[in-house]
């Protein structure tokens, strides 16, 4: 993997004592160099009266691994789903390899989606299909690979995440949480995607299994030479898999920078989050609006 380009405003100055939005607005994480693999500009998304994304700007360079951190309900998953095309943003731009995808026709969108792999928070394995068919799903449906060949490819991908061929014919319900995550990772990498998204990859796992999954993510992304965009609130995971970290708060990126800089960010939102303090500028939302 290439070294992460640094963001021009990677160190956000300490916010003024007044309106916290001033601090939020002052940060814009932008990768330098050529055309970013993913370029998000001024992204807005609301659900009814609830404004979730309020102008997100984010670049992810080719081969870079960016992790978006933030508390629950800050819009991390919504951001990911907008990029994936699962949700349609209200306003703003998303470019993949320089191609605008917001408002794109469904057929063209499918071609873009062929570049993606995704590991869902809960695994999202199809419980009506055996493990091997889950892993080979993209190969069979999107790439029209013959089933026999797809099964062999699935077993190879299972091996890549440390699972033996004996799990191939099991149902996802027969697997532990950690094994389901591995199968989901195998499915995410099976089509050799250019961009892989990870949604809370370690949620619900014990610390050891979390580390195993983190190692697998790093290894798989490295082997594929893929670009990775992850969301998590697990700082150990973020430190391990990221080149660059961006923090999302109240629908905006409030800080972005290389992973090595996060402990000295000087940003009160980041400091409160990474140290897990109840006191600070972030007021936790206790219920969904």
């Amino acid at each position, binding site marked *: 993997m290439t070294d992460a380009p640094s963001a021009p405003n990677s160190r956000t100055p300490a916010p003024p004592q007044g309106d916290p939005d001033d601090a939020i607005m002052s940060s814009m994480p932008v990768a330098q160099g050529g055309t970013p693999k993913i370029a998000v500009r001024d992204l807005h998304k609301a659900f009814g009266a609830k404004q979730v994304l309020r102008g997100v700007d984010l670049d992810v360079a080719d081969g870079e691994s960016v992790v978006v951190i933030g508390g629950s309900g800050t819009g991390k998953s919504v951001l990911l*789903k907008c990029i*994936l*095309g*699962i949700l349609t943003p209200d306003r703003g731009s998303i470019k993949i390899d320089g191609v605008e995808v917001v408002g794109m026709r*469904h057929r063209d969108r*499918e071609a873009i*989606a*062929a570049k*993606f*792999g*995704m590991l*869902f*928070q*809960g695994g*999202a*394995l*199809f*419980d*009506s299909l055996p493990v091997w068919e889950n892993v080979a*799903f*993209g190969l069979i*449906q*999107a790439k029209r690979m013959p089933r026999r060949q797809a099964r062999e490819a699935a077993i190879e991908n299972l091996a890549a995440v440390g699972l033996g061929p004996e799990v191939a014919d099991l149902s996802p319900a027969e697997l532990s949480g950690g094994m389901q995550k591995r199968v989901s990772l195998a*499915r995410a990498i099976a*089509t050799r995607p250019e961009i892989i*998204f990870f949604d809370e990859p370690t949620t619900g796992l014990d610390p050891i299994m979390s580390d195993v999954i983190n190692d697998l993510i790093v290894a798989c992304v490295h082997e594929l030479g893929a670009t990775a965009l992850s969301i998590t609130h697990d700082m150990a995971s973020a430190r391990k898999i990221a080149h660059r970290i961006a923090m999302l708060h109240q629908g905006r990126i409030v800080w972005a920078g290389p992973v090595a800089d996060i402990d000295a960010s000087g940003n009160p939102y980041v400091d409160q989050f990474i140290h897990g303090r109840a006191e600070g500028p972030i007021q936790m939302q206790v219920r969904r609006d």
Partner: protein
Amino acid sequence: MNVVAQIGSVFLAFLEAAGRLSLFALNAVSHIVRPPWYPRLILRQLVDIGYYSLPVVALTTLFSGMVLALQSYTGFARFSAESAVANVVVLSMTRELAPVLAGLMVAGRIGASMAAEIGTMRVTEQIDALTTLSTNPMKYLVAPRILAGITMLPVLVFVGDIIGVLGGYLVSVYKLGFNPDNYVRQTLEFVEFNDVFSGLVKAAAFGFIVTLMGCYHGYNSRGGAQGVGVATTNAVVSAAILILVTNYIITELFFAR
């Protein structure tokens, strides 16, 4: 809020829901006629809806035919018109009872199961996963189910027609003492193509309704297990109501003078 505003608000909400359902239905139908198709999934749904619903439809229509013969005999005996039992049974079964009862039974069995399955897929992000795997969920999940519903309900109803008439025959011949040959002859002479055909058209419409409602409510379910439960209930209730309304409309179209 005054009463007029409340009524207006309910009416607008109804229009919005109707519009959303119509768009969903149009989208689903467009995916039925456009490739790619998924033959394995279509076959699985055909078997699930057709083969596995057969026992419940057969039992329902068998006993309905038997009860119909018994009741109509009791009623017609009051004015010496017992000979009309065969006519009443075949007409009622083919035109009304077989399609409506099969539709309602399949709504309970298949509509609920579809809403629960697709609803669970929605809340566990499996539908989102389909999208990320370059697979259109409408084409993969909804179109095969609706196609199978439209295809298999007429088959079930045709079988239900035969079994219902058989039920009437069994009661009429073995309990009420009708002549078997006369009963069969009377049934065959009285039934017309339009009687059976109208029932099969109704069945296709009911198959569409049941699968559409199951898919629609499952696809739009929200909020975890409770949301899936609500979707399942809504799928069955809305399908049952629409079946009864559609039954009247199709009857009007076929038989109104």
